């Protein structure tokens, strides 16, 4: 029945399916094509790069632990946020988006202002006669990755909590279901469905993490594949080595996507009338205290560094930033909004296509949609450069390339929210729509849109904000008067203009978050 409903919509709109496959082909060819381009130009006289295997080991180690920590700790946080209602809860949930949107270096400096050797935590330790905190090495990498990704995972799980029908909670209350019973019958099925995908997302994001690993890593002990790729491209100019390392990266990521697909629980959304949650499982005093502590601790951890970034940058922001900042701001906004529109369009098209059928082909397509996250941004930049150079001046296309890359990198993120939303809409309203003989656009508007509206907003918001902050590949293409804000910040830093750079960082933070807030929150105001 469900399947027929999907087919029904699509039958009236065959073109949409073709568009879906085209979009998927596009992002796959941009990401994989760039690796092939690098491989094609490379000189294959050198063998397999030595040291690749030890960097692979460390890559897996840091990405794996980062993902596990994020996922495990996001569960209690999202649960606390789901169970409690308090003044400012909505704002808090929106604010959780901030860390994920920060450029890596800004996040690192912000975190170090709190947890660094001259931060307040070290200050307190020294005051009580201990050594100052030294977080460099694996702990530092994990801390920064945790800071970045905890909010993202929390949002994903929060969506999962709210997808549990409120009828189930009421039923559980009637049956006086508590503790382990409650967990295994209500919460675990949802977690099994959401957590593997969240784990995978963080794992992939951490696999290609570069500046964080290098700055916090403490030295060559912390050499990742991404650094090896960078070395091959810049230090040795050995394109074949870079391509081999990139293939290895794709292979590893491909395996992890497959592995996760095997353990991931099937999506099963119960039907609901959609009334508000009134959870009965949060009554105990201890649970209340635990939830409060969780929310306060997480907020302190996430927001203190951000407040510190704002305060460091405020003086320069108020006393006036160089004029080039405002043009760069305009360019960044343009890139962000264009990327956001494209991402949402392509993701919607792909998500509805994946929703149409559940056969092997679509499973494969879903796995392929993760691919852009597995490609090193350096390889993608170099590959695109190689592909564009014979036909056009890459400089002239800097912003276009930035938009393409941002879109490719954000589609996998957007899909993680949209695919379950589409599946939920199909399961809940598919039969109803079928019996009411709803077709095409009407079916989409009536049955799908209410369910996917929020994930669409969130995807648009996060893409726009990420594209504001993402340095991506533009550094390879940008002209002196064509940079975006993050690139300008980098250039300020390289010219000793630390205060102005801090000002730009604060501006970037405010703008990214402003965009995010505006797009993400708009939906709930309109509810």
């Amino acid at each position, binding site marked *: 029945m469900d399947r027929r409903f999907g087919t029904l919509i699509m039958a009236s709109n065959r073109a949409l399916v073709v568009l879906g496959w085209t979009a998927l082909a596009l992002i796959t060819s941009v990401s994989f094509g760039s690796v092939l381009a690098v491989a094609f*130009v490379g000189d294959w006289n050198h063998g397999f790069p030595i*040291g690749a295997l030890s960097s692979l080991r460390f890559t897996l180690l840091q990405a794996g632990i980062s993902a596990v920590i994020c996922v495990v700790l996001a569960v209690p946080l999202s649960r606390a946020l789901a169970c409690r209602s308090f003044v400012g809860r909505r704002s808090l949930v929106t604010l959780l988006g901030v860390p994920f949107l920060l450029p890596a*270096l800004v996040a*690192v*400096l912000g975190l*170090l202002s709190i947890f*660094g*050797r*001259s931060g307040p935590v070290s200050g307190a330790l020294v005051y009580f006669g201990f050594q100052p905190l*030294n977080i*460099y090495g694996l702990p*530092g990498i994990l801390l920064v990755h945790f800071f970045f990704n905890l909010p993202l995972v929390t949002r994903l799980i929060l969506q999962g909590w709210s997808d549990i029908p409120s009828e189930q909670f009421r039923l559980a209350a009637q049956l006086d279901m508590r503790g382990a019973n409650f967990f295994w019958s209500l919460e675990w099925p949802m977690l099994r469905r959401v957590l593997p995908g969240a784990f995978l997302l963080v794992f992939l994001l951490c696999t290609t993490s570069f*500046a964080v690993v*290098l*700055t*916090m*890593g*403490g*030295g*060559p*002990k912390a*050499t990742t594949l991404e*650094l090896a790729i*960078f*070395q091959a*491209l*810049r*230090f040795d*100019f050995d394109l074949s080595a870079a391509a081999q390392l990139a293939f290895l990266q794709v292979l590893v990521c491909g395996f992890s996507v497959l592995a996760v697909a095997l353990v991931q629980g099937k999506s099963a959304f119960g039907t609901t009338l959609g009334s508000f949650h009134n959870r009965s499982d949060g009554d105990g005093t201890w649970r209340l205290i635990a939830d409060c502590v969780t929310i306060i601790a997480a907020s302190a951890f996430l927001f203190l560094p951000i407040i510190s970034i704002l305060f460091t940058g405020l003086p320069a922001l108020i006393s006036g930033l*160089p004029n*080039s900042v405002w043009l760069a701001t305009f*360019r960044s906004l*343009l890139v962000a909004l264009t990327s956001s529109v494209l991402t949402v369009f392509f993701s919607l098209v792909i998500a509805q296509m994946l929703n149409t059928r559940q056969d092997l082909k679509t499973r494969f397509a879903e796995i392929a949609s993760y691919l852009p996250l597995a490609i090193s941004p350096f390889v993608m930049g170099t590959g695109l450069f*190689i592909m564009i*150079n*014979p036909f056009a*001046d890459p*400089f*002239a*296309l*800097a*912003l*276009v390339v930035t938009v393409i890359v941002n879109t490719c990198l954000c589609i996998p993120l957007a899909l993680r929210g949209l695919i379950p939303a589409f599946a939920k809409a199909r399961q809940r309203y598919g039969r109803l729509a079928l019996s009411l003989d709803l077709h095409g656009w009407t079916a989409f508007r009536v049955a799908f849109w209410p369910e996917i509206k929020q994930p669409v907003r969130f995807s648009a918001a996060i893409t726009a904000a990420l594209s504001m902050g993402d340095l991506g590949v533009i*550094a*390879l293409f*940008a*002209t*002196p*008067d*064509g940079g975006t804000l993050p690139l300008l910040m*980098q*250039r*300020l*830093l*390289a*010219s*000793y*203009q*630390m205060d102005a*750079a801090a000002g730009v960082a604060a501006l970037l933070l405010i703008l990214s978050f402003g965009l995010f807030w505006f797009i993400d929150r708009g939906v709930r105001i309109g509810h």
Partner: protein
Amino acid sequence: MKSTLLSAAVLGIFAGAGTAQDRPELVVYTYDSFVSEWGPGPIIEPLFEATCDCDLKLVPAGDGAAVLSRLQLEGQHSDADVVLGLDTSISGSALASGLFTAHGIALPELNLPVDWNDPIFIPFDWGYFAFVYDTTRLSHPPTSFTDLRNVPDSFKIIIEDPRSSTPGLGLLLWIKQVFGDDADQVWADIAPNILTVTAGWSEAYGLFLQGEADMVLSYTTSPAYHLIAEYDDSKAAAAFVEGHYMQVETAAILKSSDQPELARQFLEFVLSDDFQAAIPTTNWMYPVRIPVSGLPSGFDTMIVPTKSLLFSNGDAANVRDEALAEWIAALAR
């Protein structure tokens, strides 16, 4: 009409502004900070254009290493006529790429502590690598690598990764030239003091200014920036008795240039007073010719190393890989 105008404007922003085609164009690839508002670019561009009747196009392509890899990617088809900013630690690889041609300029007397008679690379500024510290927090900095090897483990320095940064590579060659076969032992001894190894100079210097470490690998002239631009005399470079390794930044002409005569004219301009006078307070390095107006006051307070160290192009390329392997082995332990 309105929408046409708007889309034209948007297209214009995406495509970048067009350039006047009536004058010959000289394309110079250089590193990012050279062309930034605070770099020498905005000062020297109009000065050269006033003399050459040409359009000087300064194109930033990342840091020094990125500029070179971009030229290698473009090969013979590069638009670049001149490259500005390859330093001595990578000019060996640049030479091996075979992309550059002899400048054919008779070099005037240079303000360089070493002899220079390279037929391809013309130096335009230089400096010494050094560890920079904050005098308000550190009263007795190490005065030699021997000192540094014996400081307690709680004394922390931040260095840059030689695989991604020129100062990082400079330190690698510095220690290699001073200690030769014992370099790996030196690295092993100072390993506990290395707080972290960053991708580039900006990250390292930013962390240092935030108070993360006692010293950071930078240049002897870094304190001049704080002194002259910020009236802050609290930063100083630690003078090491073994001598300091040099960084010499160079310019060279591309073999594939379609404007070889203009390119040569630009290289002569690089050695002129107009260009050289712009260097000290934009690049915060020493000019290769002392400007007529002299060095800005403040530069005279910088430490002057007793011994200047520098590998020749060929030697730097030869020891580079070995030194890197030693570095990784010593620090990965």
